[in-house]
């Protein structure tokens, strides 16, 4: 496949630029593990619409990626596939992978219904004050790129966002005795209606 040659060069460049704390994971194994992640998440981690929607990791906040991998391992976020993947990763590997994904910047794969975008933009920028729903932009940033532990939403897959917002309480924060950052989103996800979820998901999915 045509991308493969360029992909190896890109990976080499990424590894040569990797920060000091990632050196504990040997270069060969980070490269192999990254390639494995990309089998599902896409050659540039842009995401993929498989039978299940596989989210974009490219450009994601490193702290958010590390938190999610830990949440999978500790079963605070329910996903059998990702538990299997994550529990084999050392902390050094988690950091190295997060840095690698953060550095990628492919265009969004798109595909969401265009007609919902305008309503989605209003919800994203202004919230829904009557329903006590804060503006997403307030935390996720006006360009939806997130910061720190708050994830980037720009360019995320439409069906993945819909699924996450719809199933928030069933998938995240599954250990009540160990509340995590997912708790912040619970009221928002719960309050948004189905059509509001679809609208805001469509809007951010097109953001670069």
């Amino acid at each position, binding site marked *: *496949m045509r991308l493969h040659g360029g992909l190896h060069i890109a990976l080499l460049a990424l590894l040569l630029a990797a920060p000091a704390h990632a050196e504990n994971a040997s270069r060969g194994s980070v490269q192999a593990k990254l390639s494995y992640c990309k089998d599902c998440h896409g050659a540039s981690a842009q995401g993929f619409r*498989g039978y299940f929607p596989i989210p974009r990791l490219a450009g994601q906040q490193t702290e958010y990626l590390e938190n999610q991998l830990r949440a999978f391992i500790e079963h605070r976020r329910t996903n059998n596939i990702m538990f299997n*993947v994550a529990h084999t990763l050392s902390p050094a590997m988690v950091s190295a992978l997060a840095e690698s994904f953060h550095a990628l910047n492919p265009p969004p794969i798109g595909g969401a219904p265009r007609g919902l975008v305008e309503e989605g933009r209003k919800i994203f920028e202004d919230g829904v004050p009557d329903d006590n729903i804060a503006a997403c932009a307030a935390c996720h940033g006006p360009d939806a790129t997130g910061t720190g532990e708050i994830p980037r939403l720009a360019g995320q897959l439409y069906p993945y966002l819909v699924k996450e917002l719809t199933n928030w309480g069933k998938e995240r924060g599954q250990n009540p005795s160990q509340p995590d950052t997912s708790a912040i989103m619970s009221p928002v996800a719960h309050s948004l209606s189905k059509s509001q979820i679809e609208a805001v998901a469509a809007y951010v999915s097109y953001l670069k």
Partner: protein
Amino acid sequence: MTGIRSTLLILAAACLAVCASARAESPAVRNCTWCHGSGGQGYSPAPRLAGQRAQYIENQLAGFRSHGRDNPFSKQYMWGAAENLNAGAAHELALYFASLAPRPANDGDADLVATGRTIYQQGMPEENIVACVVCHGPNAEGVGQIPRLGGLGHAYLKRMLEQWGQGYHLNSGPPMPDIASKLSASQIEALAAYLSFIR
């Protein structure tokens, strides 16, 4: 005399039944079922087409015409077969075969099914092998242009997985060459066995 007469009558009825079912298929479809089996259920080495995702069939026909799909049997049989199929005809044939109810081949080694199921549903993270279920679905039914694998013949599935590893191009999704290349021979056998029984 009576015995021979009734035998002849039975033979005649049988011939009529076979000819009738053949006549029910259009000439275009019959060009396919000569090799792909009555009802498109497959006839080794030609895979089952019945119940396959229409977009996948269409993509493969395009791959045969462009010679992008270059594994040996494709080159030997399908390049010629698809040569005169324009996009419209390919589309119609794809829709037709997609609409037929698939029958599972049930021809894998039953002792390998449990191992194959584990690889399919959970992957093998320590060996960097992904879980097929994520793209191909819980019942290996596929979606969109991702093919249905459930119930295909085990020899065909095995050949496909081996051929990616050998560097052939199968007009597939981008990660398949990388994924298949990592599978060992016994893992391929197990997957092919498991999938061949899925209804």
